[in-house]
């Protein structure tokens, strides 16, 4: 078996994790070059080749799978660099996207600017047609008008077309006809049909998702194509896959035409790996947190499965495709601390980002950040940041906090730094609580799986607030997304609205719809040579009549069809799920199905991570010194032992207070906490 490569292209770094089939992993990090991601990737591959004692070409020869996690879609949307896009929609409803169901991001800010129009009004053309809620044609498609609209878009030089008609999720015939007309008119650009990208009720959500796909698609397609060819020209002869927002991998050409489904391609890998690593350590219910420079990503993992959701927004556009349910708050190492008009100390949401970054980076940053506070408090060491690759300027950090925070508030600089640290932790903890509680869970039932450069510095202080007892820090914490990509399976997710009162479901009809969804999923899965076995999971979104929030209920079907019993069971389980999520159930009240969901997972052979035996408990061998570290609970600085992560062996027991320095991660073991490195070199930290 050849090399399996997982790649995560981030804003600052490009991470690679390579498995050679033995269960051992090789990790490497190289700086990203925005605009030319291939460079960072090739650099990383070169490192790897060297590690395996081969030339790049030879190494790529032996590489049969590369899985890429990319933030390209998010970046396109952040910078609005998408294609010149046109929309054809139901006549009389061309402004749905601007009305946006009245969403406004700030309740009282009357000066809030409107979202950037990714499809300006004059490129949103209505044509006469109407399909009703039963899927019947109320008004037939006016073909001449449609043709005229297509010609107009052609004149306007659009590079991509989105089509979204009311109720197309039940009857797509009009949308399909328009796609045909686009071809007939020789407008040779990709066409995105809402009935294909998201055949799901609620026009605003479906339309917005469709538009984002059309907007991002051309650029994503060429990006992936270029990447593929540059890899091949470097000698790669295996297959390139892309991480899907749903936490599974997909073929590169499917990825291009379903660009919007790559929204979470980057972070999804981390969650997948977090789930996998945690379950190896024996924890199936975890909250994964990824703390980067600008953001803090939280996700729930239940029974080792990342929970998925459909509530995402990107650059103020709604994306309703199912994806790993990652909740992001604008709090990271780069978050800026400031004092508002009322004299209150605030942290974030503004961030110094990677450039200029925190003051201590010495890249021209002047605003004190969380990282600067961490440095002053002794959590990170000026000399060993990124394994020493970057030297931090402690004096500058101190000066900035003194001048901008401590002075004005009349407290000493360490008090101020500790304040920044606590406020940042508090908002992160609240984010975690929000994610769990709003999904009907109790944080105390979960372990915390921490990764990302700064996560392990802060999580130890947050966990107790949430009543969390155990914290896990994977050895590969700094490159976890890449690891996730390297480990992931194929996964295609399909949604189809299917609106029926639960007491009026025709089983055959239901099976017919699922069968069609499965057929489409298998088509999208494409070549299955890498697939060991496929697993199909079916779900129904159900709600009580009158409600507008659905509960997704699994159908426990082991065959290719849903049986009378499967259905009955699912319907009765709905009430209990509702009870568990929302504290009450009303079995006597009528309920209705809204959507059907189907996951097709193609399991592939990935070498299991290697388990190592425990050695001696005593970590003395890994000790590399002591330094003064500030612990509020100890009322100040405490002389704290520092351990070299590279020397920590499975079985080592490290009592807090202590610092463990991995090359790209620092782990703070707070007083009263105790860390041990387990069989997979994951740090399991127990909290009183």
């Amino acid at each position, binding site marked *: 078996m050849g090399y399996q490569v997982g790649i995560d292209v981030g804003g600052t770094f490009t991470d690679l994790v390579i498995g050679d089939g033995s269960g051992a992993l090789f990790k490497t990090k190289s700086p990203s070059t925005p605009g030319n991601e291939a460079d960072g990737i090739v650099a990383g591959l070169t490192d790897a080749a060297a590690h395996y004692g081969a030339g790049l070409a030879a190494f790529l020869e032996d590489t049969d799978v590369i899985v890429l996690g990319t933030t390209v879609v998010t970046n396109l949307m952040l910078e609005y660099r998408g294609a010149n896009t046109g929309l054809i929609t139901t006549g*009389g*409803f*061309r*402004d*749905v996207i*601007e*009305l*946006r*169901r*009245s*969403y*406004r991001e*700030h*309740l*009282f*800010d*009357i*000066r*809030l600017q*409107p979202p950037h129009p990714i499809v*300006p*009004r*004059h490129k949103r053309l*209505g044509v006469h047609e*109407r399909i009703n*809620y039963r899927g019947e044609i109320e008004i037939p498609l006016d073909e001449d008008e449609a043709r005229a609209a297509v010609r107009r878009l052609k004149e306007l030089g659009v590079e991509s077309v989105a089509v979204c008609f*009311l*109720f197309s999720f039940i009857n797509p015939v009009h949308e399909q006809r328009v796609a045909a007309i686009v071809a007939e008119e020789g407008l040779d650009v990709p066409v995105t049909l809402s009935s294909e990208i998201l055949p799901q*009720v*609620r*026009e*605003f959500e479906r339309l917005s998702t469709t538009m984002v796909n059309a907007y991002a698609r051309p650029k994503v397609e060429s990006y992936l194509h270029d990447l593929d060819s540059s890899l091949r020209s470097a000698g790669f002869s295996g297959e390139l896959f892309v991480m899907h927002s749903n936490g599974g991998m997909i073929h590169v050409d499917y990825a291009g035409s379903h660009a919007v489904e790559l929204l979470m391609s980057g972070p999804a890998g981390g969650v997948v790996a977090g789930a996998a690593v945690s379950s190896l350590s024996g924890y199936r219910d975890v909250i994964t947190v990824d703390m980067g420079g600008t953001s803090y990503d939280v996700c729930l993992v239940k029974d080792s499965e990342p929970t998925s959701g459909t509530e995402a927004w990107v650059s103020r556009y709604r994306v309703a495709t199912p994806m790993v349910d990652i909740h992001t708050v604008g709090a990271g190492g780069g978050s800026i601390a400031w004092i508002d*008009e*009322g*004299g*209150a*100390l*605030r942290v974030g949401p503004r961030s110094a980002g990677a450039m200029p970054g925190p003051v201590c980076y010495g890249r021209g940053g002047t605003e004190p950040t969380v990282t600067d506070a961490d440095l002053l408090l002794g959590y990170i060491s000026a000399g060993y940041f990124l394994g020493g690759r970057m030297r931090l300027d402690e004096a500058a950090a101190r000066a900035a906090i003194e001048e901008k925070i401590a002075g004005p508030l*009349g*407290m000493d600089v360490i*008090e101020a730094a500790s*304040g920044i640290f*606590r*406020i940042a932790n*508090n*908002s992160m903890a*609240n984010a975690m609580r*929000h994610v769990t*509680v*709003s999904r009907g869970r109790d944080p105390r039932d979960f372990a915390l799986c921490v990764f990302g450069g700064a996560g392990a510095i802060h999580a130890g202080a947050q966990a107790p607030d949430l009543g969390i007892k155990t914290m896990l820090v994977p050895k590969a914490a700094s490159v976890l997304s890449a690891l996730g990509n390297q480990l992931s399976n194929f996964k295609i997710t399909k949604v189809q609205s299917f609106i029926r009162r639960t007491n009026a479901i025709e089983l055959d009809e239901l099976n017919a719809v699922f069968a069609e969804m499965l057929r489409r999923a298998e088509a999208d899965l494409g070549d299955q040579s890498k697939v060991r076995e496929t697993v199909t999971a079916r779900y129904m979104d159900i709600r009580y009549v*009158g*409600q*507008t*929030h659905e509960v997704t209920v699994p159908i426990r079907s082991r065959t290719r069809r849903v049986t009378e019993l499967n259905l009955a069971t699912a319907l009765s389980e709905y009430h209990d799920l509702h009870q568990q999520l*929302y*504290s*009450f159930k*009303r079995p006597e*009240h*009528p309920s209705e199905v809204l959507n059907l969901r189907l996951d097709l997972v193609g399991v592939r052979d990935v070498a299991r991570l290697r388990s190592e035996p425990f050695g001696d408990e005593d970590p003395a061998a890994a000790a590399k010194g002591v330094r003064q570290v500030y612990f509020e609970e100890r009322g100040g600085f405490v002389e704290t032992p520092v351990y070299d992560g590279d020397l920590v062996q499975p079985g080592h027991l490290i009592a807090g207070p202590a610092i463990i320095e991995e090359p790209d991660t620092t782990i703070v073991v707070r007083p009263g906490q105790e860390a041990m490195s387990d069989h997979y070199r994951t740090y399991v930290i127990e909290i009183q």
Partner: protein
Amino acid sequence: MAVDVIFGEIVREYFETVAREMNTTMDNTSLSPVFNEAHDCSAGLFFYDGKDVSLIARANAEPVHIYASVHSVEGLIRYYRNDLADGDVIMVSDPYFYGSHIPDWTVMKPVFWNNKPVFFPGIRAHMIEVGGPVAGGYNSDARDVWQEGFRLAPMKLYDRGELRRDLLDLLKANNRQPEIMEGDLNAMIGACRVAERRVIELLEKYGIEQTLEATNYILDYSERRLRAAISEWPDGDYHGQAILDYDFADTRDINVECTLRVRGDEVEADFTGSHPQTRGYVNSRPGNTGSWVYSMFSVVFDDIPINSGFFRPISLKLPEGSVVNPLPPAPVGNSTICIGNDVGQATIKALEKIVPERVGAATLDLVVDTYFGTDNRFPDNPFYVSVEYFATPISSGAAYGVDGWGAWSTPHCSLKLTTVEMQEIQYPVLYLQGEYAKDTMAPGRWRGTPAFQMQRRNPDGCTVIHCIFVQGCEHPLQGFAGGGSGDGNYCILDYGGPNERKVTDLAFLYPSQPGEVIFFQSGGGGAWGPALEREPVSVLADVVEELLSVENAREQYAVVIDPERLVVLEAETEALRAQRSGP
């Protein structure tokens, strides 16, 4: 002090999260679209120091509820002052018993610590049905408050944790949709319970003293900031006016006068001179009036956390027997918007005189169609009531530096539009149109939002009864600093049919026919600044986006555009503008 700042911030954010969780619970568990789609409800966390009741945290939701709910919770606590126990859940709605209008129910649960009630999570929500003569609770024939629905005095629904089922059944007996009402009520109570758990956790962690210290810090913080800001305003009296078209009875052109008397770091909002209370159901009780005043201040100071500290520097003077402070038994049903909106407009027009660049469209008028009938698709339970938010979505307008956009104005945008598809699945209707209309924007340096036009067709084979209320046709939403006002609201019955009729005020219990089409226009908010100061390039953009005709570009903005090439003709434009602005 120093530690307070940090700890205070931590507790503030904790409380805000609690309020958010209450709203989430409402969203997820309520049955009525008014809550889970339209979010016509709001959560708050209150505090009682044995003397005053203070709001300490609230979640984004209908702001008209915010101050009103303080009023109600204050009333409830006063009512039960000597009769509160752990496990109680109490509620109230009556307009003359601490409420605004009968459909707005406030449910509150005292949180006990050391056998003393300290914190009070409360939910205020607009119930879709409240009994009374007319389904949906909007009875424009009402001439006294009894004709508006079942009057709810303060009620202890749970007594020491035990449900008083006779009270619950009483509520259900006076409701056309008891099942839904019970579901929504459970959601409200559930939300309060969630908050209770979380507040207890906080108290367990920090103890009462520290928590109260932080609570006071939170209140003082907002007060301090508002006082600081106000003291920078020149002392003086600043006046604003707004006029309501119609009271749905027989009074027209109902004026609301607001004089802001700025003295040092305090403001008095004096409504002397406002129209006497009227026969129609547009009279606004103090709780509701206050809400609109404070909402406007929150718009001007959108970065100051809203809590009772924020209310302290602002006092109200509401003449008794006027539309802003009616005497019993005046009907009040529609006042949360009609008159409420005018209180808001009068207030922000007065603020315009102080800080023009911080004001803008922030109020809400209505074309609302509450319709009901039977839906043959669901024979087991065919009766339905639908409050048509989709008829009335545009009230947003311009502010300094931004054109009007979107649908509902800040800060009412927590109301969410339902989707056409969901409406058609839930109710027997078909929408034929729902989009912006050309040449309808309030002209100005920053223009208003285009008017929204909607057409809805009845299904064949069933008639529907409508209660259609229109405001803002005679007196549309006003502009600011010389900007034009909105295009105005109206509705056309039997649109394109033999009995076509334009409605500019009221069509009460109107029975529409099978297949009948009804047309609605929601006119959009006002503009900011003189139209002649609008950048020609922005005018051109509106033309390109098919929102403005070349003729109106010239007419309203004195911008001359070549209709073929769609470019601004600089010279002609300069000439025309010079001539227009000339004497």
